[in-house]
């Protein structure tokens, strides 16, 4: 199908110094496994030789990719170049933890081809950072951002988090302002999500942590959107903002538009021609299987038309691009209702969620199914 559309490539580096209590990404703290992982990774890349025509985005995420030193990142890149073709002008993003960054490794990353840096700042208040059990301080983040700029990166994204217990609207605005003072090209502002299987999830189940009230969640969301829009950012997805269209995350948009992507590393997901598959969520198993010449796959699904449709609705309605009007054929009554409730805008061709609409994006898709 989309062999002529360049695909996205994702690499999951499944290591962290310690596990953050809210995090549901797959990672382990045993860093002695890094070299095995690297070997297995090289093996995995080779399995896909010829499967995807070309890529125009690479995203190195995790986990904490900055636990890899410059030469390890270079090794990763080299094994890629030898098997897959990355188009010139590809977007190459590296997810970073502020306290891991030094002038030296930044230079090496840059040399290795990284041209977009995403910084896991989360907050610019030390109490909040401590609550999140992050390793870094606000000062370290500021230093890191200066170093990143100094190293010549001109596409920087900052990750921030709201809805942290104890956080006020004021402290949130201050964090935002602090990030804005570095003029990031891109911002991801996530609401703290209390997920199952996380430390916070358990605490919440025991009643030791209370999720935010609906009204407060709304306030944070709206505040963020309003403030950043006012500063000239485009609110292009529920949690994502960019200074201009050219700074939309090229890689992430592939997830939202059913564009092919290949995910490498434990727990990574891939998608091609309506088929999605994913790797085992275990580094050791990942390494073992590949070492034995096997595949690290843990599962696979091929989307039926109905499933594809449902995803298209869901993914589309999370973005300011919205969905094609034809996806809502036969639901005029609902559309009217949503329009008059100010949740969507309807143009000639598309149905586009408003700011308020993005807030209820999880339940909008069902309104258009039969």
């Amino acid at each position: 199908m989309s062999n002529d559309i360049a695909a996205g490539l994702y690499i999951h580096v499944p290591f962290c110094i310690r596990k953050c209590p809210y995090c549901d990404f797959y990672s382990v703290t045993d860093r002695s496994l890094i070299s095995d992982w690297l070997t297995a990774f090289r093996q995995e890349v080779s399995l896909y030789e010829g499967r995807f025509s070309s890529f125009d985005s690479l995203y190195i995420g995790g986990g904490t990719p900055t636990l890899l030193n410059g030469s390890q990142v270079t090794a990763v890149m080299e094994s890629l170049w030898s098997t897959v073709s990355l188009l010139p002008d590809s977007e190459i993003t590296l997810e970073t933890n502020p306290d891991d960054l030094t002038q030296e490794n930044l230079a090496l990353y840059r040399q290795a081809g990284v041209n977009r840096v995403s910084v896991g700042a989360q907050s610019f208040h030390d109490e909040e950072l401590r609550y999140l059990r992050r390793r870094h301080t606000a000062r370290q983040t500021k230093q890191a951002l200066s170093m990143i700029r100094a190293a010549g990166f001109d596409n920087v994204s900052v990750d921030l988090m709201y809805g942290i217990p104890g956080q006020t609207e004021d402290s949130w605005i201050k964090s935002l302002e602090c990030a804005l003072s570095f003029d990031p090209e891109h911002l991801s502002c996530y609401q703290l999500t209390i997920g199952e299987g996380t430390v916070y999830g358990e605490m919440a189940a025991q009643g030791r942590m209370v999720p935010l009230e609906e009204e407060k969640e709304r306030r944070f969301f709206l505040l963020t959107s309003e403030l950043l829009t006012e500063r000239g950012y485009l609110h292009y997805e529920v949690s994502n903002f960019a200074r201009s269209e050219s700074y939309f995350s090229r890689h992430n948009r592939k997830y939202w538009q059913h564009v092919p992507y290949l995910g490498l590393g434990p727990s990574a997901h891939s998608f091609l021609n309506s088929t999605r598959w994913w790797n085992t969520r275990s580094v050791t198993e990942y390494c073992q299987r590949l070492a034995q010449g096997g595949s690290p796959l843990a599962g696979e699904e091929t989307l039926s038309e109905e499933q594809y449709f449902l995803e298209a609705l869901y993914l589309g309605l999370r973005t300011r691009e919205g969905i094609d009007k034809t996806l809502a054929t036969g639901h005029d009554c609902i559309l009217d209702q949503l329009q008059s409730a100010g949740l969507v805008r309807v143009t000639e061709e598309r149905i586009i969620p408003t700011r308020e609409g993005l807030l209820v994006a999880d339940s909008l898709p069902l309104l258009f199914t039969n």
Partner: protein
Amino acid sequence: MQNIRNFSIIAHIDHGKSTLADRFIQYTGLIEERQFRDQILDTMDIERERGITIKSQTVTLPYVSRSGQEFELNLIDTPGHVDFTYEVSRALASCEGVLLVIDAAQGVEAQTVANLYMALEHDLTVIPVINKIDLPSADVDRVKEEIENELALDPEEALLCSAKEGIGIEDIFEAIINRIPPPAGTVSNPLKALIFDAHYDSFRGTIISCRIFDGSVRPGETIRLMAQASTHKVEEVGVFLIDRKPRKELSAGEVGYIIAGIKAVSDTRIGDTITIDNRPALKPLAGFKVVTPVVFSSLYPISTDDYHSMVEALEKYKLNDAALVYEKDSSAALGQGFRCGFLGLLHLEIVQERLEREYDQSFLMTVPSVQHEFVMHDGRRVTVDNPLYYPDPASIKSSLEPFIKATILIPERYMGAVMKLCMERRGVNSRFSYPTPGRIEMTFEMPLAEAIVDFYDRLKTITQGYGSFDYELIDYRESDLTKLDFLVNGEKVDALSIIVHQDRARQWAVQVCDRLKEEIPRHQFKIAIQGAIGGKIIARSTVSAFRKDVTAKCYGGDITRKRKLLEKQKKGKKRMKMVGSVLIPQSAFVAVLRSDDEQ
């Protein structure tokens, strides 16, 4: 014929009728001990679970008396609830005597009296049996007093037993053969057999249970059902020894079955007389009555895809329950469905449960309705049992609704509360009597409509289970009726419309609006719920919108998970009904029927 006895057991609910029947069967060794299931006569699951007898069944018990004589005792089981009074009456018409079972702890109850009267109407020999004497709370002396005072029977004739422990069973058998007369009748006369039950067997078609009063019948003969005026060729006759046992012939005095290639149970009528086509009886036996439904409700399949499966289920169900009537119905809100008529509330519940359990149907039921009559300005009379067909109010001159005489038996201390309930339900002409010290029998007249939704449950609650309730239809009376509609976001939910008395409209409207508010999940927009008469809104409630549910992240691994969640919700949505832009869960339709105190 001298060695035959035909009898029934009658009792107030839970006084032990089924247990006693089981003991009889066990005593006569009809089935081996290990095959014995408790309450063998109640074959249907629901009967077993609820412990009530719905469909009468019959069994022939072989008994050798103390003096060594062999007898055939035909036990004709009778259903025990007001809805099935007519079937009880037909069963009794087939007997010469009854055992009147009275709980040694509970004593005489409303239905003990009602049943006794019915037995006396049929000129039957009554043997009082005091059951459950094993209970520590058994008070035989008090019960004997009640037998004398309330039933005007000779307490010395009462037998004592414990059906549970198997005490006193043989004495009961001896009383049956000694006190109940053998059946009369003349074998040489033309056949007269009374149909007192029929059920459907998927291999044999309709199995008629009947009592032969005169003459005889054998396979090969052509019978005529006199009221039905249909003829059928007899394939098999026999008696019930738990299982059917074919015989060469059934003759005067006997109780048994006839199989005659009759397709549906509804092709036979309980109470009808069977005779031989070419040598017919001159007159049928007395007492044939067409049973008519008094309570109506519509059934809609939860998923519209299931409509056809429901058509089939109803067809099959009907083969076994001639009392259910139904026809197609359709609602703008709920789609294609069925309007059903029931003998009463219990019948409605039983049909509902059996369709769900035995026929695997899932459906919604609308608020039960009675049959109203409207006299139009042009003099026409219109009968309406479905609010969908409520006539144009401008053309109605007067409205009538059915009234019942309700009989309630309660301990005195609940009188105040029950009076209040009776007033709330528009009860009039109440009368009291004191059958025994401490107990009150209240009778009053009230609209049937008030009794069919949540009356018995309320009564049980306010009397802590002590109240018993029985009713009979008396007449139609003029009444100030109106139609009440419900709207969600301006769209009428026609399946919720009801015809109510003016004075009760507001209360009902408020209650339904509140219930809907609880049951309809929040949507992305505000939902206005309104109760309206004509264009006038008389009650309202609002379901506020939810305004945030979006999850923050959505990357590679999140998409499948989220889609699966949506797929699950989508399935859930199938069980909801879309009215305009609002999804109404089926629970909302059930909730409007729910009793206040269940909340």
